[in-house]
């Protein structure tokens, strides 16, 4: 099947939906959302816990509730979407090849594309644990899918490796479902999860969080029977003699998310090694003209509200591109350094207050100033009581700061 669409959005999660809604509201009618899953909503469908939408709706919604607000809007605006449709490739000229359960192979010519494919979990392969390969080892997100979407039981005695939010949320869910969560192990000396999740998912149920610990061995032939853990030193290497055995039938890996960028690379879009997402400008446009990116495929977000905001901007910018074309001149890079791991956007031509700067710090720190420098002058400075890599930070710029940044040649964001 060959077709032409003015705007195609890849991924029907919160990012894809917000982008499509915004494009439609800004006057683009010829839109198609391609989603490989059976429903719109992306990862939100399996996140049944509350904690979504505090910024956007001023109330604490569950993931499915938050998704429903957007799916209802998609239906009301009559935005076209195709489910069970997997995008196989995008080329630099913005042609898309997708395969759908009922429409078969689709070749789609487009004028603009918004990438909103989300992210996926790192797996055991990515972290290398020694030992056998028995059943009973899941990524935390897969376990969440089994329990919250399929209604399956995954095990009785659980250990969770990694203290990211998904692992923490699953610790509570499994406990309430009657399983025994023995411990959550974290390699680093601090947790990667939100403080509120440590409080309400672990402390509420007296589940111990063991920092600076990792797994050194896995026991079990067919089904997991236990794991051997060890504490690690500052270099994160296991300390000999500190090994202990923990009996368990299930191990969940919650060791981080990576943007799902195979398609992006396919389209020859430049990737930022630090975010594992595309390099974008202030209009959320990638290095390929007319291809935009937003949500977790761009950089991993902790809060869906920021995803929706960012995606709505992507939809609006794609609309402006379709209507006027965006004229590109010289870009200036925003250098992230001295404790700042990355900044999105990575580059810009002309900043306006509409574009926030998103960044993460490299390591947790207390009482530091976040500063933005324009040719050596600190044009933005804010004291933060506590900063941690697990919380994405946001800087909102005003007209005056934007003007200074637009005039400068050397721009950086750092901790001082």
């Amino acid at each position: 099947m060959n077709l032409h669409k003015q705007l195609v959005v890849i991924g029907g999660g919160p990012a894809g939906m917000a982008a499509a809604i915004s494009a439609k509201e800004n006057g683009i009618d010829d839109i198609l959302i391609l989603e490989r899953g059976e429903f719109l909503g992306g990862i939100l469908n399996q996140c049944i816990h509350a904690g979504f939408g505090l910024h956007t709706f001023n109330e604490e919604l569950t993931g499915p509730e938050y998704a429903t607000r957007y799916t209802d809007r998609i239906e009301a605006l009559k935005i076209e979407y195709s489910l069970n449709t997997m995008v196989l490739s995008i080329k630099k000229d913005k042609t898309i090849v997708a395969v759908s359960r009922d429409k078969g192979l689709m070749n789609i010519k487009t004028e603009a594309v918004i990438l909103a494919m989300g992210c996926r979990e790192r797996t055991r392969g990515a972290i290398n644990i020694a030992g056998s390969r028995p059943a009973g080892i899941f990524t935390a997100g897969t376990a969440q899918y089994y329990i919250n979407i399929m209604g399956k039981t995954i095990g009785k005695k659980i250990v969770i490796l990694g203290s990211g939010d998904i692992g923490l949320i699953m610790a509570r869910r499994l406990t309430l479902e009657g399983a025994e969560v023995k411990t959550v192990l974290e390699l680093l000396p601090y947790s990667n999860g939100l403080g509120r999740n440590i409080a309400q998912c672990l402390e509420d149920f007296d589940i111990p969080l063991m920092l600076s610990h990792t797994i050194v061995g896995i026991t079990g032939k067919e089904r997991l029977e236990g794991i051997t853990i060890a504490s690690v030193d500052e270099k994160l290497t296991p300390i000999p003699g500190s090994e202990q055995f923990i009996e368990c039938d299930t191990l969940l890996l919650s060791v981080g998310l990576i943007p799902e960028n195979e398609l992006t690379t396919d389209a020859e879009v430049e990737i930022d090694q630090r975010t594992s997402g595309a390099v974008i400008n202030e209009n959320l446009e990638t290095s390929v003209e007319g291809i935009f990116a937003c949500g977790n495929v761009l950089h991993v977000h902790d809060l869906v509200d920021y995803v929706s905001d960012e995606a709505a901007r992507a939809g609006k910018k794609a609309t402006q591109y379709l209507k006027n074309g965006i004229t590109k001149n010289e870009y200036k890079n925003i250098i992230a350094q001295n404790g700042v791991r990355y900044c999105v956007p990575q580059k810009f031509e002309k900043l306006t207050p509409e574009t926030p700067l998103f960044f993460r710090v490299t390591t947790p720190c207390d009482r530091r100033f976040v500063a933005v420098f324009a040719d050596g002058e600190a044009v933005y400075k804010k004291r933060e009581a506590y900063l941690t890599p697990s919380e994405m930070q946001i800087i909102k710029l005003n007209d005056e700061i934007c003007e200074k940044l637009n005039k400068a040649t050397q721009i950086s964001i750092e901790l001082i």
Partner: protein
Amino acid sequence: MTERKMTCIICPRGCRMTVKYENNTLIECKDNFCARGPTYAKNEIAAPTRVLTSTIPTDSKTVPLMPVKTSKAIPKEQLFTAMKLVKTIRAKAPLKCGDVIYKDFMVQGTDLICGRNLKV
């Protein structure tokens, strides 16, 4: 008087507060970013509550589970009893996100509500 650290769970900022209390009464609360922090601390010391979220089976072939939540926070010590009650409830299509599936769930005036639409 007892002094302890407490993480406010009201918003993602998760302020790490220092609270002082005596006989279930809050005396002092520090390091909270906004006024909701001390309110949370007060309740947490006197009678902690949590919103419960879970899933219940449906009669639909395409959507096996309906996500549900309590319309208000319920006493924390009742969470496990509440889970037992959740296990007895079934969802029958059609339902809309926000529909009450079980009235006066555990506490009078608190309902168990649907988290998504369910078509027949």
